[in-house]
């Protein structure tokens, strides 16, 4: 005899539960965790190098999801001892259990920030909560103004959008307003910051934003606020 059994839960329930547990651990340890997502080559690693250098001496760690190579991890080891690489093989996204395993032997309370550099992909990571405090989606000026239009699901869940490589805005005649409109159509209220890891432009606002994620956020420690 056929019978209906009710579930009413997310398909990603198992990962969500794991992520919720991680989120509790991160909060208890006082570490702010950022899930950074972009297409391959948009500049996640370059941005993280610059960010970690600028945050120093505040201790920050990085977990990197990569299909195969160890290059990104090698680059970041020059700015922080806290680097873990997750080689995902054919898997196109990170899951909470992988992050949990990668940081298993870390004393989280020693860190103030933990950046998770997700696999370069703007589709698959959208569904997988990693226990982060904030989701940051990064686009590069080189990807064109309309790129955000192709990825509504990941934008919908974004807490911040970064437009990187701003030193190329003028050389490429990038229409910043068109980019902003594309983002706003899916996520009308997400903050958008423009920056360049190469020139340092906009880095201060990005650091300000990161600091507000701490419950004891001190946005006053930046140059922008001091100037006002």
């Amino acid at each position: 005899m056929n019978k209906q059994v009710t579930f009413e839960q997310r398909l990603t329930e198992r990962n969500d539960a794991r992520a919720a547990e991680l989120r509790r651990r991160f909060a208890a340890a006082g570490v702010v965790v950022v899930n950074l997502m972009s297409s391959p080559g948009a500049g996640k690693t370059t941005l993280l190098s610059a960010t970690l250098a600028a945050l120093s001496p505040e201790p920050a760690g990085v977990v990197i999801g990569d299909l195969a190579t160890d290059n990104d991890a090698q680059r970041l080891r020059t700015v922080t001892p806290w680097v873990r690489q997750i080689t995902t093989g054919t898997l196109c996204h990170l899951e909470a259990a992988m992050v949990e395993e990668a940081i298993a032997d870390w004393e989280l309370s020693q860190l103030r920030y933990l950046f998770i550099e997700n696999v370069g992909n703007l589709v698959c990571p959208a569904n997988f909560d990693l226990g982060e405090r904030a989701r940051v989606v990064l686009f590069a000026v080189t990807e064109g103004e309309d790129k955000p239009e192709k990825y509504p699901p990941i934008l919908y869940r974004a807490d911040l959008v970064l437009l990187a490589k701003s030193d190329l805005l003028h050389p490429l005649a990038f229409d910043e307003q068109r980019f902003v409109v594309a983002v706003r159509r899916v996520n009308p209220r997400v903050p958008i910051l423009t920056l360049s890891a190469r020139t340092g432009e906009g880095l201060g606002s990005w650091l300000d934003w990161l600091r507000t994620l701490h419950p004891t956020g001190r946005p006053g420690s930046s140059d922008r606020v001091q100037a006002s």
Partner: protein
Amino acid sequence: MHELAIASSLVETLAERFRERPKTRITAVYLRLGPLAGVVESALRAAFEVAALGTLAEGARLEIEHTSLKVRCHICGHEQALADPAEDGEDIRLSCLVALPEVCPQCSAPVLDLVEGDELDLVAAEVIENEQASDVRTTTD
């Protein structure tokens, strides 16, 4: 192919629920999918077929209900559902943007929040508690 990870998770959830009743067979699985779920239906169907092989859900029918986008005005609270749900996630990525209104039809405020449309839900399963069939199989084997 994150759909494969999602389908595997689905099969594990189903198996876990019926762990105490190993003779249960699942004949249909009911899902709810929103345009912002970030899942392509055809890929999810293919992945489920593979993930279910050799499990209690092997051969089960996937019944997928598509929901539409809903926006809410943050000034006046007016809610509006947008157009018809599209057929497949791949089309929706672009079409939902085109469908989004720029201002609130009630008060003309320029900011509308998406409040529904990211559903990726396991709603229910249809099962047979197949005591007899299993008994017959074990005696004839």
